[in-house]
């Protein structure tokens, strides 16, 4: 006879009790991060109800089931309000898969290794920036893997978005109108390079001469014709009180010009519902936001593994739902045993259209799972949710070196007030022969200088 040590509501009471006491200690049955450090398997950290959708729903939902309008009420508590609305009202569906137990399958390998190696060395300096105990820039991995405060969580995601020294994403963007038509289709590239906190690229952990920078990042469009060549280069100071330097190549001007960088709450291109501020739910320097607060703990549903479509030659994905059957990505979600819900307010942007954002983080990885933002009246405004995966399906594997490539695969950005949806997917290659790459040593010269965006601009 199996004797349950903890009753069904134990985890719920545990999270509520910690919230009431203002305590954040990840894990329920055992501390999360030490368990991960011992071997990466989180079995034993959470009770069954947090590791099995069957247990959580008391058998109403099973692995392999499709969550749709007919059964979404059984998992309503596991969804943010916009995803619930999308399923209940707009025909969105989610396929349930079992919970991933190996933490090393949820983030780039070297990132997790660095997190383990460097844990305990991060502090906030007097200005609020993350440094080592010696006062130097961060040295790689998540600086606060076992967070105690909300700002520690946001510091971690802001310091390294893609969790890799150099990332180059080939992206297709589909902008869908309220009637379900794909009104705009863009192809773009996104490049980001870490000059500090490097774990793979030499020299590491710092690129000499660039220690005062946190990130070089560029985005450039290759399709359609009227935006082709439009390129923006962001150079992020390490100091998170400062805005990035922004340089842009606008084809009409035929040259690189410097731009102000405070317009982060509007789309870069017509039809898009995606803002610069949305990147990884932490698109702005974290000290330009404030009033960080943990407002929730508990399980959630999220697409964090087995969400790569290696069967398509270009890794493209299928869709469903909405008026034309193409509003939502097909996604596989699993029960994430512990999510930390954090609110933050744009205190450095008095005229931002949003009053706050609420972000769900996976407690195991501290990677963002979903975001909902609210307008100045406090009404729900926009949502942002995505899918991540190891790029392997058993038959096909994409490597980022010695290990399978772990990255995002798809994103939804939904403006619920205008009912416009932007879908992004990371693909193998886009027009012009631009291909995804990881930790490419020449990314800086190819995509992350003024002369580079001038060259890309045609």
């Amino acid at each position, binding site marked *: 006879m199996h004797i349950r040590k903890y009753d069904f509501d134990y985890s719920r009471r545990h999270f509520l009790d910690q919230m009431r006491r203002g305590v954040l200690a990840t894990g329920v049955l055992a501390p999360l991060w030490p368990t991960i450090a011992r071997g990466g398997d989180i079995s034993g950290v959470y009770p069954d109800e947090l590791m099995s959708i069957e247990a959580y729903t008391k058998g109403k939902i099973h692995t392999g089931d499709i969550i749709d309008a007919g059964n979404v009420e059984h998992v309503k508590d596991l969804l943010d309000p916009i995803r619930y609305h999308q399923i209940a009202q707009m025909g969105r569906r989610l396929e349930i898969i079992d919970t991933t137990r190996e933490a090393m399958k949820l983030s780039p390998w070297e990132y997790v290794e660095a997190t383990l190696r460097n844990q305990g060395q991060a502090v906030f300096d007097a200005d609020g920036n993350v440094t080592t105990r010696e006062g130097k820039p961060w040295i790689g991995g998540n600086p606060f893997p076992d967070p105690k405060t909300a700002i520690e969580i946001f510091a971690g995601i802001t310091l390294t978005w893609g969790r890799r020294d150099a990332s180059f994403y080939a992206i297709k963007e589909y902008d869908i109108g309220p009637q379900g*038509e794909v*009104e*705009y*289709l*863009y192809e773009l590239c996104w490049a980001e390079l870490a000059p500090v906190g490097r774990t793979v690229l030499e020299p590491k952990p710092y690129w000499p*001469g*660039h220690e005062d920078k946190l990130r070089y990042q560029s985005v450039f469009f*290759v*399709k*359609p*014709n*009227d935006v*082709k060549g439009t390129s923006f280069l962001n150079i992020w100071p390490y100091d998170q009180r400062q*805005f990035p*330097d922004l340089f842009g190549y606008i*084809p*009409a*001007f*035929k*040259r690189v*010009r*410097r*731009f*102000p*960088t*405070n*317009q982060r*709450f*509007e*789309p870069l*291109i*017509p*039809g*898009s*519902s995606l803002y610069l501020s949305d990147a990884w739910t932490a698109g702005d320097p974290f000290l330009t936001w404030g009033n960080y607060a943990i407002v929730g703990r508990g399980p959630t549903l999220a697409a964090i593994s087995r969400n790569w479509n290696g069967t398509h030659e270009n890794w493209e994905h299928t869709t469903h739902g909405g008026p034309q059957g193409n509003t939502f990505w097909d996604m596989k979600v699993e029960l994430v045993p512990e999510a930390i819900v954090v609110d933050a307010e744009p205190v*450095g*942007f*008095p*005229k*931002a*259209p949003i009053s706050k954002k609420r972000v769900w983080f996976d407690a195991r990885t501290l990677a963002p799972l979903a975001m909902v933002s609210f*307008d*100045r009246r406090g009404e729900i405004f926009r949502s942002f949710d995505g899918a991540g995966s190891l790029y392997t399906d058993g038959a096909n594997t994409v490597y980022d070196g010695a290990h399978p490539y772990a990255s995002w695969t798809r994103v939804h950005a939904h403006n619920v007030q*205008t009912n*416009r949806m932007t879908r992004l997917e990371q693909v193998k290659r886009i*027009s*012009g*022969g*631009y291909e995804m790459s990881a930790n490419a040593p*020449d990314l800086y*010269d*190819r995509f992350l*200088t*003024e*002369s*580079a965006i*001038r*060259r890309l601009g*045609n």
Partner: protein
Amino acid sequence: MNKRRLLKVAVASAVPAAMLWTAQTMAVDVAISGFIREEAAYRIGQEPNPSLRGSAYAKGPQTNTVRGNPVSEATYAAFTGQDVTNPASWVLPPAQFQKEDFNNDERWNLMATRAEVDFNLKFNENWTGFVKVRGYYTADIIDEYGKPNNFKTNMTGLNGDCGNRLEVCDRNYMIDLPAAYLDYNNGPLWVRVGNQQIAWGEALFFRVADVANGLDLRRHSFLDYASEEYADERTPSPAIRMSYNLTQQWEVETFLQMFQPTIHPRSGSPYAFINSPYQIRDDIGFDDYEDFVNGGIRFNGQFDQLGLQFFMVSRHNPDPVYRWGAGGQTALDPAFGMINGQVFSEQVFRASGLPGSPVPEGGGTYGSADWMGGAALGGLDGVEALNVLGRDFPFIGGFLTNIAGVSAMLDPSGQGMLPNADIANGIWATNVQEALPVFDMFFSILGDLDADIISSYPAENVFGAGGNYIFYAEPDTLLDQLVVRFEATYTPDRKWTNNVARDPLTQNEWITALAFEKYHRFSQNYPATFFSLQWMHKTASDFVGRPLSTIGGTVTKRATGKPKGWLGDGWDGFSFAFQQPTPDLKWRYDFSVLYDIFGGYLIQPAVRYKPSAAWTVETYATWMYAKNTESVFAPIEWTDEVGMRVGYQF
């Protein structure tokens, strides 16, 4: 095609040819995109273009100043072989020149179809290529003595009759390759080889550091959508351009580019701004310069909020300096015989409508008012232009000397028509009162006149520097993230058209621009509004390059030169623009103003609508005002129009 031209075309075509060959013989990623667009502009102003149809500046009866003046009437009699002692017998010219009005009041300024197809090629991680094919067709919307020539320039091109090296054209279409180049990138080195545009500097519309390329104004002049700046106009040319990131802060960039001049709208085309009796002979002018190479070097630096650039360009100025060309009308050589060692055909003018003239009778300049008015619009001193003719063409100099001498003999006071002439120094007329009867003497004898003007492109060195700085203040206040840009160039011994003289005007010139730009959110519901305020100052010429010393003339007044600018000496202009997109960026509202301190402005509101990925609709209205001929807008003040563009991209 002669061998020399064949060789040049082959050189210019080398890069695109190599790309095509490579694309066929090795695995190359090729991405193709493009658009087709209808472009139209409708004139809403009352006046037609004064530079069309035989100098429509003057229409109807024009006073002949030969008449009513006994001395000039007697001189006319003498020059036409009449008995000067018997005034009663004189057959005098009409008291008024009848300037025919050819204006048809056509309202469409532009009715064109544009197609552009881009080929992006990727050979490997280091080598990429780009080819843009541009096709432009314009309907025959005006008719000036037959179908207008919009594009043929006889300068260069695959058939030698167009404006750019990689271009084929006819009078109503052109197809060219504004870009056809290979890029090589290896670490901090970037090399671009092939036909390309090069734009330097950060000031918009005010060309300070933007000195590498001239402008091709044959399509819609520079009157497109203002927010597109000169993207469609910069003339491409084969070049080697290299950039190297020296350090994290400093980049050095250099280029060598085959000389390619500015191309003005063709005479007789809708946006022509050179008086139609005067044929632009840049085909002759370009021949002397097409083998030259312009070069430049620039250092760019970035230090936190401060950006710096220093540059030097050694070039032949692509903006033409005009001089008179010999008319070549031999039909009248026997009638005039030899004067001062020259025959009639060796001087500048042609009698319109007679053999050897491309202009029909009535289509030339006719009368001193026509001459002075046209000169004033063109920024020329109509009186000094007379002396120029005398100095540069012995035939005319002799004629003027004869007028001075004969009229003095026929004047009881002994002064004659040119009483203050200093012939030894090449000065015949010293004021408008002296010049008008002399001009009218020409027109009375020859009828209406036309001529050629030949372009030249003198060498010069341009030294420049610039910077930008971003100011920070309380978030979302007016001064927060205000971008300030400054650029300056100094060109010693720059040359300008000197009343169409053979010897150009020479003067040192400073050009500066100060720009303030800001994105400011006025509400939480709308994206930021973009504002731009710029100030340009030029010490020796105005915005369009007219030397300040020869502007300001009128029909009855010779050019007085520059009035006082905002800072005292020089020309000053201000531009102000804003753009306001809607939250989804489907709509964008633009507004642009260019204000000329000498008394003129251009205003252009515009709306851009992008309902889907494929379609874009843009509409705009342009209004111009010129207080007088000192304003840069005087030659194009007529261009009040409403434009629309509808584009479909693929």
